[in-house]
């Protein structure tokens, strides 16, 4: 359907949509650079003060650091657990895949606020009392990114024809572990990196589980943003915009990587 040319109506319609979608972002951006913004269409004076204050704020830097390492640990843990598991399931137990699909779809169907209820109930008493700790959060994060990791790794394995690769390697005398580490892994690595980055950016924006599970004890960037919202609008805007820019850069890297691989993972 792409032989026709966009006429006046589609153009206006899409323009309106883009204005609608970008306006809140734009306003936050302007607010972050505005010295004082009241009663005028655009602020009267601009400043970089809010960004300066942001970087001087030790609590912000701590929250940023907490977010970074918690997300990193969760993604690395997920990689070490999921890579062998998805490999084994895809290659040796293809019949289990329908069961896997149910497990993988659960995080979509069960919203964060519902999942948090179960997690709090399970871990606030009894033998595993890890309520309010990073362990619980990392476990919860593992489930959040489960669909992305499973889908990404599985798609990469199918794209590179892992079964045939493995057969070829074994025919040439490689043991299974050697074949996995030396033949399969290097081939699926680009796809796996893309899913890992995507998972990372999803976790970076996570608020519900973080706030409900460890809100009082561990401050991630989202929790920090929520707490600063009421204090200084300008400072919070600066934080929100920096956060958004970070995610934007990350998703652009993702897109480039995805295109480079011929869309093997993201389609």
């Amino acid at each position, binding site marked *: 359907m792409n032989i026709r040319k966009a006429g006046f109506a589609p153009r206006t319609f*899409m323009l309106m949509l883009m204005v609608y979608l970008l306006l809140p972002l734009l306003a936050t951006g302007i607010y972050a650079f505005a010295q004082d913004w009241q009663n005028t269409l655009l602020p009267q004076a601009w400043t970089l003060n809010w960004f300066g204050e942001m970087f001087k704020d030790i609590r912000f830097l701590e929250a940023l650091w907490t977010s970074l390492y918690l997300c990193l640990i969760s993604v690395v843990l997920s990689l070490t657990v999921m890579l062998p598991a998805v490999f084994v399931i895809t290659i040796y137990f293809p019949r289990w895949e329908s069961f896997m699909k149910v497990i993988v779809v659960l995080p979509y169907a069960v919203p964060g606020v*519902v999942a948090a209820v179960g997690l709090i109930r399970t871990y606030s008493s009894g033998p595993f009392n890890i309520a309010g700790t990073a362990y619980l959060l990392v476990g919860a994060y593992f489930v959040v990114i489960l669909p992305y990791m499973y889908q990404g790794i599985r798609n990469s394995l199918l794209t590179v024809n892992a079964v045939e690769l493995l057969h070829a390697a074994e025919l040439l005398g490689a043991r299974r572990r050697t074949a996995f580490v030396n033949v399969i892994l290097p081939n699926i690595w680009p796809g796996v990196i893309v899913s890992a980055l995507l998972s990372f950016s*999803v976790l970076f924006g996570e608020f519900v589980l973080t706030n409900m599970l460890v809100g009082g004890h561990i401050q991630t960037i989202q929790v920090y943003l929520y707490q600063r919202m009421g204090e200084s609008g300008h400072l919070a805007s600066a934080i929100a915009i920096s956060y958004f820019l970070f995610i934007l850069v990350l998703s652009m890297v993702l897109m480039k990587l995805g295109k480079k691989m011929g869309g093997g993972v993201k389609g």
Partner: protein
Amino acid sequence: MKQKSRGVILALIPFALMVLAFQLVPVLSMLTGSFQKADGTGLTLGNYLHALQSAYYMQAIKNSLLISLTSSLIGIIVGLFCAYCITWFTPRVRDRLLMLSNMTSNFAGVPLAFAYIILLGNNGVFTLLFKQWGWSVFTDFDLYSWSGLILVYVYFQVPLALLLLYPSFYGIREQWREAASLLGAGPWQFWKTIGLPILTPAIFGTLGILFANAMGAYATAYALVGGNYNLLAVRIGSLVAGDVVTQPEMGSTLAVLLGLTTILAVYLNHLMVRRTERFGAKALSKPDVKTKSSRRLWTAASEEVGQ
């Protein structure tokens, strides 16, 4: 042979443990919790009866259902129009537009609520501006109420609807349109008898995802209205992790009720995706179908998690 299977099983153990510990056991615990009495002894249906008889909880359920339905319906209508418009652009422009909408879908949850507070809150830039200009239309508008919530919910529903719907427009072949017009059908008749019936499964499937997305949205509502507007997700949050007295059993009960509606909605989507794929399998090449469903999964998830 024996050793072979041992190594294979070994690779699955950590995965099984993680899923069991952080997914299956918590869900089970929530289910049993919802049937437990407040003192933790014995089984009862009392919590459910209480939830369905209490005017307060019923209001939360009703508000959530209404807000989810309304925002999904608006989202799907706007999304349909936009998805159709997008098919008119060249692939280059189209990709740009899709990228922009994808980008804004990252702007959800706390930052989104915050942006709207800056724009339209009590001391928001536009609120003050409109007051100064004397535009009375906006004096009744209250961001921290039903209309404000709808506005913010629609914001994250529209890009999602667009991203989920536009692939199905490409399932409509140009030849069908030509054939229809050769047989004397006008554009209106084409859409009524061919276009819309083809899109219907995709529309209902997307509606399911949007509905589940809105039902589960917590961060946006929490950041915007706190506990001041009675929504199911907000209620659950304050019942299990509130500052005052927590009532985990009641929280579990409401969570199960909320979970049931979202599972139902996602199941609807699943059914519809299967129908679309069976239906479109001949028209679309195989990889296209795959791309579509995996993208559906990816974007749906990233949205949902973002809330």
